């Protein structure tokens, strides 16, 4: 299987973003790579997709980075809660139906 991790340069390449933008996204805690400085940063595939989402929200909805950090963490929370809700509903159904 292909490597599931990217270094800083690779993330810039695959997202076609300038390094400064990536640094800004990391500075805002929108993604949290392993490693302490840009040279040693490692990003996983989930971070790639979060980066893309951040850029889309930034461009499409004209949201500042700090707002994006908030929006993304709320969206993640929402997704978790929806998922949990779905699980609990499925379990509840097994209890009350049949």
């Amino acid at each position: 299987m292909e490597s599931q991790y990217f270094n800083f340069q690779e993330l810039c390449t695959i997202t076609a973003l300038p390094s400064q933008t990536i640094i800004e996204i990391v500075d805002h805690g929108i993604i949290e790579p392993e490693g302490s400085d840009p040279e040693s940063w490692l990003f996983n595939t989930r971070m790639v997709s979060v980066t893309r989402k951040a850029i889309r929200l930034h461009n499409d909805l004209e949201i500042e980075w700090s707002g994006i950090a908030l929006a993304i963490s709320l969206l993640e929370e929402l997704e978790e809660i929806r998922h949990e809700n779905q699980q609990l509903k499925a379990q509840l159904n097994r209890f009350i139906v049949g």
Partner: protein
Amino acid sequence: MEFKDYYKILSVAEDADSKAIKTAYRKLARKYHPDVSGHQEAEEKFKEVTEAYEVLKDPEKRAQYDEFRKYGEPSSGREDGRYRSRQFEGDSSGFSGFSDFFSSIFGGAGPSGRPQGQSYGFTSQQAFDQRGQDIETDMPIFLEDTLTDTTKTLSYQLPHREADGHTREINRTLNVKIPAGVANGERIRLKGQGGQGIGSAPNGDLYLRIRLVPHPLFDVEAHNLIITVPLAPWEAALGASIEVPTLTGKIKLTIPANSQTGQRLRIKGKGLVRKQGHGDLYAVLKVVMPDTADDQIKTQWQQLADSAAFDPRKEWRK
């Protein structure tokens, strides 16, 4: 070709000023943005709204559109269709997938400016080296298939650039190795299996989003599985040894005497595969009543009722 009423799409009056148009656009863009909205047709709606705003925010384009709307044809007689050949530049909304209707009035492929590699599935047509588009697609996986490494056949659509420069979707089939222990929502990257690179640039990548298919018997909680076990009242009262299905076969489970509905029994190591070891299977007990009772059974329940000093609602009487 379908006529698009951009005013209607943005829900603004024909004489709305630019501020009202911007406000309407922002509101709808937030509502339908595919990253934010749970709306089924969010992506289509968002494209439509963005297209409408692209036209109405620009006084020149708006005037041209108004003329078309009124007289039913693009104003090509005027200044030799100078808008037709113009590409829109520097716009950040980033969609090149505007409608035929849009192209028929304004020409071009729409605005450019979105960094490439974004994932709505739109492509731009620049004639220089450009890394191929990354593609994201859902990969449904049965729970049983997550226990060991497994190979799945995947079909997906890929934008393909023809010799004439046009891009169309082609179907691609691929055998993909899914490692044991994948979790719901996990993404697997397949390098170079995305959109074709332009010029000497490399292909994009394919990302598989793992979706665990709901199982008829088991629910998933992280790496643990949950199975609801129906019990007869006497099994719950007296205890029992029953057979319980797992993902890999069946096991014997001892139900202790005086078990309750909702009680969880842990069956170690029979859950999903983790990076190290296995999760557990939880049997959740559910006492069920028989559908019918004949006279003899009723007599026996009555005897039980008379002899058991049990008040299930004693909490209410405190």
